[in-house]
């Protein structure tokens, strides 16, 4: 399109609005140079163009968006609670089973020999010839270990005293001077009601007073002490006693343990603890038997 004085205004506006091609722009510029009287009008039109202002939108932060993503809710507390519940449940189950097993073991152990843990050995010399050739004279004076001499002395005194009472028939329920009870010379039966005192239980020396028996006590809260008889050949024999069931157990104690000599492990263990003292063989006819005292735990 050619520019002339009739259409220059449109060309000027198109030029100012940057709607012309470079060639057309050159034509406009050429026309302006050829028509300087129209330059003032061109300038006026040029002044109608607004220069951009710097205006800032002050609430831009409100426009930003964040897509709502699926949040994984950390169920920490729920997990912890579930773990605690599981642990408690598992603990309860285990505890219940252990308790049941323990009760079963108790029930079984009440019928079978309990664990026997050897108490400190006490050597009890048994002399073949005693002063009084009575049954009570055969009760043993305990020769306790040297370290416990004082306590042994008091215990010895007590034994002696009870033996004397027994000898005099003062012991309740025991026939006076029960010489009729055939007790082998080398045998003895003793028991200890508690760890503190050794007691003689003549009523346990029932008919026959089989030296091969194991005597136990009733109603003792602590474990009964069992002394094992020694035979003429110093052979230790431990057999089941014919104790009545009432002798076996009370509410809070187990008094009797019947050891089976067929139980080799126990017998062997006992044999080890009941070795003869070799020094005793050198002294007269006295026989010393190592008496093992066992503490029954349950």
């Amino acid at each position, binding site marked *: 399109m050619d520019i002339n004085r009739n259409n220059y205004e449109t060309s000027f506006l198109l030029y100012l609005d940057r709607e012309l091609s470079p060639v057309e722009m050159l034509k406009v510029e050429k026309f302006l140079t050829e028509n300087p009287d129209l330059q003032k009008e061109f300038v006026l039109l040029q002044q109608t163009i607004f220069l*951009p202002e710097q*205006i*800032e*939108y002050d*609430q831009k932060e409100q426009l930003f968006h964040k897509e709502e993503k699926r949040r994984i809710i950390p169920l920490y507390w729920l997990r912890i609670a579930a773990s605690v519940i599981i642990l408690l449940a598992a603990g309860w189950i285990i505890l219940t089973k252990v308790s049941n097993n323990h009760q079963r073991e108790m029930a079984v152990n009440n019928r079978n020999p309990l664990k026997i843990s050897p108490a400190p050995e006490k050597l009890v010399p048994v002399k073949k010839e005693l002063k009084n050739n009575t049954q009570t004279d055969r009760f043993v004076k305990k020769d306790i270990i040297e370290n416990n001499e004082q306590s042994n002395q008091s215990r010895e005194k007590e034994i002696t005293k009870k033996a004397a009472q027994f000898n005099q028939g003062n012991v309740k329920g025991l026939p006076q001077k029960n010489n009729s009870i055939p007790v082998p010379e080398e045998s003895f039966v003793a028991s200890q009601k508690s760890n503190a005192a050794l007691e003689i239980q003549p009523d346990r020396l029932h008919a026959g007073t089989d030296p091969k028996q194991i005597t136990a006590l009733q109603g003792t809260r602590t474990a009964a002490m069992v002394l094992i008889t020694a035979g003429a050949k110093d052979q230790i024999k431990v057999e089941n006693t014919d104790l009545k069931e009432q002798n076996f157990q009370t509410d809070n104690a187990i008094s009797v343990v019947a050891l089976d000599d067929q139980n080799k492990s126990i017998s062997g263990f006992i044999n080890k603890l009941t070795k003869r003292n070799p020094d005793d063989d050198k002294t007269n006819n006295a026989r010393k038997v190592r008496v093992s005292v066992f503490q029954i735990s349950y």
Partner: protein
Amino acid sequence: MTEEDYNNCVKLYSDGLYRFMLKSTRQVEDARDLVQSSFEKLWQHRSEINALKSKSYLFTIGYHKMIDLNRKNSRIDFLESLPERPETSSKTSPRLKEILEKALNRLNERQRSLVLLKDYEGYSYEEIADITGLNITQVKVTLHRSRLILKDWLVSVENVL
């Protein structure tokens, strides 16, 4: 258009859109509301919009919202009542910018919007036509008429001064 594209639009175009709205409506609160609603609509339709055309889409939304607002408020069209000569109440010589601001207020909404889109945002006639929904000839005629009105205003002020 992704979330990132949208937020980039906020960074790049919110100031320009607000300026355009403020100059067009001459009301700060209206301009803010229009910007807010324009970007909200952009966000809602982001999945349908090409990121390269997000600016024109944004201005299109803003422009039409402004037209709707003006219709709702029954704004006065200044063009028809524009006097032949500018008022000469002020004896002091204002700056050219201030004169132009006053001259801009003499334009009607369409003229003002088109001038602002052309001068502030640099859109072509074709782009303005897309935004405003007018054809290119209408845009061209409207803009040329607006320039002549502004020129006459400037000439009248110069004569007074």
